[in-house]
């Protein structure tokens, strides 16, 4: 029996600049996630034989010194525990890039780095008397298709491949670069027991033939791109003779990305305060990155900024997308009937809306109405 951790897309050293002041703090979450994975690996009770990193170990090919120091410490811990770390460079940490960490750094000796630009047999390892034949390729400008067709050695033992690429027909492929396309059928022909993929940040698994193909996803989400929401997992793989590979998914993220849509036609929120309370009650958590899309026609006009300010303490990160229909709101309809400037204004915009077909213009008109409404409410509030 051979047991290993399948990691990928750790993006060590990544700093999510969009978080502003919290960017550095979040950056540490990525490091902590890896450190915890190392803790898990070296714990003798978990009997981990090896650690596989299927690409994008680092966010850039030449990470800063502190990241190298941190990673060195972690890799040394694994080395002391006699756990080899097998790494395939990804598109973020391409081996062909200038000053690549995989070529220049002292850290190189602590990993077994797959350098071949094409998938081929890399090395064989014997764990507990059983042999694991490892195949893989490094993401490189020299890499040429096909990437999913390679020869399995005619040997007894486990055959495991590591590729940082995009599985055609898989989930969330559109939000990732597709330089290394992989056909499921071709991968199945390789006869591998296990194919450790990286690149797509969401956990996915596919069984085809006798092969099990797995994307472990990230250990911590990076941003609101498709596939980054929800829990992240540490993937523990057990290979056992005459048995299908066993997968264990351990929830690993300390913060969660969540994308939600709130239809205000089905909610009873009559004011911004009520809406804020509703959102807080439904989704509030300081360990959450929430992207909330508001839709429907509320009875009041939403001020995105003011709502976000109200909720700022209830989430680690909150993004509100106000796609509510202001034109159909009760307030707007009341105003539209008024013989006032705002009544005239609303009627004018409604009139314009009727003649508009493109979504972009509709969006502009919606926003124009909301902006003006907010300003009316602001300037109309007399002391």
């Amino acid at each position, binding site marked *: 029996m051979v047991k290993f951790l399948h990691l990928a897309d750790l993006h060590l050293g990544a700093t999510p600049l969009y978080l502003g002041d919290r960017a550095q703090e979040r950056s540490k979450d990525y490091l902590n996630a890896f450190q915890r994975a190392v803790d898990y690996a070296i714990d003798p009770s978990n009997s981990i034989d090896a650690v596989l990193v299927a690409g994008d170990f680092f966010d850039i*090919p030449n990470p800063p010194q502190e990241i190298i120091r941190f990673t060195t410490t972690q890799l040394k811990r694994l080395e002391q525990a*006699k756990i080899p770390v097998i790494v395939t460079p990804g598109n973020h940490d391409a081996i062909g890039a200038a000053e690549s960490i995989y070529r220049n750094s002292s850290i190189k000796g602590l990993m077994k780095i797959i350098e071949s630009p094409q998938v081929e047999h890399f090395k064989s390892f014997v*764990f507990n008397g059983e042999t694991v034949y490892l195949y893989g390729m490094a993401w490189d400008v020299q890499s040429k298709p096909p990437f999913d067709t390679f020869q399995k050695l005619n040997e007894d033992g486990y055959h495991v491949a590591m590729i940082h690429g995009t599985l055609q027909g898989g989930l969330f492929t559109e939000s990732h670069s597709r330089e290394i396309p992989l056909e499921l059928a071709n991968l199945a022909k390789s006869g591998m027991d296990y194919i450790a993929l990286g690149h797509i940040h969401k956990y996915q698994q596919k069984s085809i033939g006798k092969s099990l193909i797995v994307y472990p996803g990230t250990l911590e989400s990076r941003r609101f791109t498709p596939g980054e929401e929800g829990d992240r997992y540490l993937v523990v793989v057990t290979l056992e003779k005459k048995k299908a590979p066993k997968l264990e998914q351990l929830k690993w993220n300390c913060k969660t990305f969540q994308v939600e849509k709130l239809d205000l036609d089905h909610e009873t929120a009559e004011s911004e305060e009520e809406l804020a309370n509703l959102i807080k009650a439904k989704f509030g958590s300081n360990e959450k990155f929430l992207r909330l899309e508001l839709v429907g026609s509320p009875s009041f006009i939403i001020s995105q900024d003011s709502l976000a300010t109200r909720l700022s303490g209830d989430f680690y990160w909150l993004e509100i997308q106000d796609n509510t229909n202001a034109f159909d709101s009760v307030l707007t309809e009341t105003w539209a009937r008024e013989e006032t400037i705002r009544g005239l204004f609303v009627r*004018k915009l409604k009139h314009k809306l009727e003649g508009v077909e493109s979504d972009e213009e509709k969006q502009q008109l919606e926003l124009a109405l909301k902006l003006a409404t907010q300003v009316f409410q602001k300037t109309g509030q007399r*002391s």
Partner: protein
Amino acid sequence: MKIKAISVEGFGVLSDKKATFSEKKINIILGDNETGKSTLCAAIAAILYGFANKEADRRRSWGASGDYKGLLQVGIQNKDYIIERDFTDNHVKVTCGIKKEDQEILFDGDANPKGRTEQPRAFRKLLDDLGFPPETVFRSAVYIGQLDLEIEINDELRQQLSGAGKADYLKALEELRKDYYSLTRQGLPGDNPKRVDKKLEEARAKKLALVDEYELARSHSSDSAKVEKELDASIHHSQELENRIIEFNFEKKALDEYLACLKERDALNQRIKLENQQKERIERLQKSINEDEHQLSGERFSALNSLPEAYLQALESYVQSDAEERIREIQGISDQEKQIISDLNDNKYLGFSAVPDDTGSILKKIIEEKKSGDDFEKQTTVIRQETKKLSLLLPILLLVGAGLLGAVAGSILSSLLHIRMIIGISIGLLIFDIITGILVGFVLLNQNRKLHNEKNKRLNAQAQLDEKRAVFQDLLKPIEPIVQANNGTDVSFEILAERWTQYQKLQQKLASVQERRKVLSERDIFKIRDDPKLKSIIESSPAASLRDRLKDFRALKTKLDTNRENLQNNESIPFSITSGENPDNRFRELVILINELEKKHTDFASFQTDQRAGGLRQSSLQKEQETLSVDINTSNDTIRSLQVRQGQLQVSFYRPPLLIQEEIQNVDTEIQRVEVRISAQKIAIEALGEAISEYEESHLSRLSKWVSAYFAKFTDGKYEQVEIVPGERPQITTNKGVIVEPELLSTGAQDQLFFALRLAIADILSSELSLPLILDDTFVNFDEKRLSIVHLVLDKIIESRQIILLSHNPDYKDWSGCLINI
């Protein structure tokens, strides 16, 4: 909105007044001056809006100390609201509904008109929400008093007219413009773009910078590629050579790895063997240890095994000391000692023990003294005898001699001289006798002197002898016991001396024997022998057997310790235990690796058996590489400059294009967001601007139209048109087309003009919620004809608005309305 009822307490002349109003008929309140008509009107406003500053005190009933409050019941859109205000502290309660069980309290708290806290603000907002106009508007459009009909269209009124006071549209427009300017430098038409902010511009500039960076980063990569191409082209030859070197390298690397693997495999094999041997050895050691331990715990050694090391050593020294022999020796010595003591007790040594140690030397002196005394005595005797011999013998002898000689000489002479013999003899005798006589005399003289001398000598000797005898006696004193013990025996001093010597020797021998015995007796073996821990062991078996046992025990112990030490020693423990690495696994890995390399390089297999051939192949590859390297060096000179360029390109500070791309995407999203917002802002500004101007135009023209209609009605068509221009006085046009200034109208006509204006304003403001009309002696200056027209107009207005008319003029009684007395 309808005022349904009012009640006041302590309010001016109305100390406790209640009134209810009709909604459908004109409420006519008649009364003389000072009856409280205007006070009632003031109370309505005061309940709604409160008093300004000290107005409250002024309005309080004179001398009243009780309640000072008011209650207003109004109907708004089929709902009744009750507003109660306590004028003393401006506490207001607003409830919705009349029946207590249905009542809902909308407000209950401080409603100070100047209050800035939450409650007064909330109250004002509630009034606003319910549709009440601001106080100033109430006073101009709802309440129309006497003699102050003239009205100016001020800003507030204009805002109310244009948007029911819900927002200040000009301010709103300005806000929208400000927001717009915060986004873009492109000003709106007619604006000065210099004062604006530039969020979009910043975002675009950022994007441009990022795109530049991205392009540079990319071109840096593509530059590298270009240089690489040039290098490829110009060093095609070198490339081939390099390829060959790479091939060699590849083969050499593979060969190095292969040979290293073989070596490692063999070493590992050796190591595994060694390890197995060591394992066996350990097992043996362990077995031996177990056996030895078992043996040690057995009967033969258990007693010894439990002894501490010091005891063991003692026991060893005991068995090694040949203790029994020593004991026998001590026994012999004791016998010897007894013999010596018995010898010493012999009679011949009687008294020896009581004499001093220097008895020997004393005896020697005694013997010497005795001998010297005896010699002396003999000498004295000789002297004495010789003295006796000297006195007689010599002269006799001399005479005899001389006679004989004379006789002989006389005979010889007689013969010679032939004289008679007798004569010759006689003559010879005579001569010789004479000579002899002389000689005898001399001898006698000498003899006498000698005798005298001898006598002196003898006397001296005697004296000395006496002295010696005294000394002798002194010498005898210390050895008196011996002398006494031997008294009466013929034992000489010499014998005594001899005995003394013997005695001394015996004494010495005794001392020596005793010393030896003491030394032997004092040795550790006896202590060991008597130790309670060891006694039983020593006594359990003969020394020789014990010695063997101990020896065996020691040997066993040493062996056990060595074995244990060997077992503990790291080097003797198998590698797999110390290194934590399983050599079997590594061995299998190596075998796989070797097979893989052999598959790739079929010629390698032969090196399995002949590793030396492999080494030779290595060096031949090395040589070929070196030859190729020289060729390449020559080619490299030509391309060095290109490599320098390549090196320069490699030292760059560009971020990876991927990261820049991500940031560009973020900035793009931001730009897109700002652009949408700008467009929306622009749409909003334009639409609001249009709405404002359109509305201003429309509501002013509507206002003008409505005013014109009212005024034409009041003046019976004399004045056809009134044009309202904000900030200016109304322009009046007669039915003949003449424009007339308001100042030129009669007082009554002016009142009618402004009444028309107020009615028109109230009409406009009532488009959303109809406001009541409170007319407080408004028509004082109206002539009868025009008053009747007003009556007709009011009858029309009453259909949509509530009217409360207050007057002192009893003529109003004739109007169809609801008469209320106060």
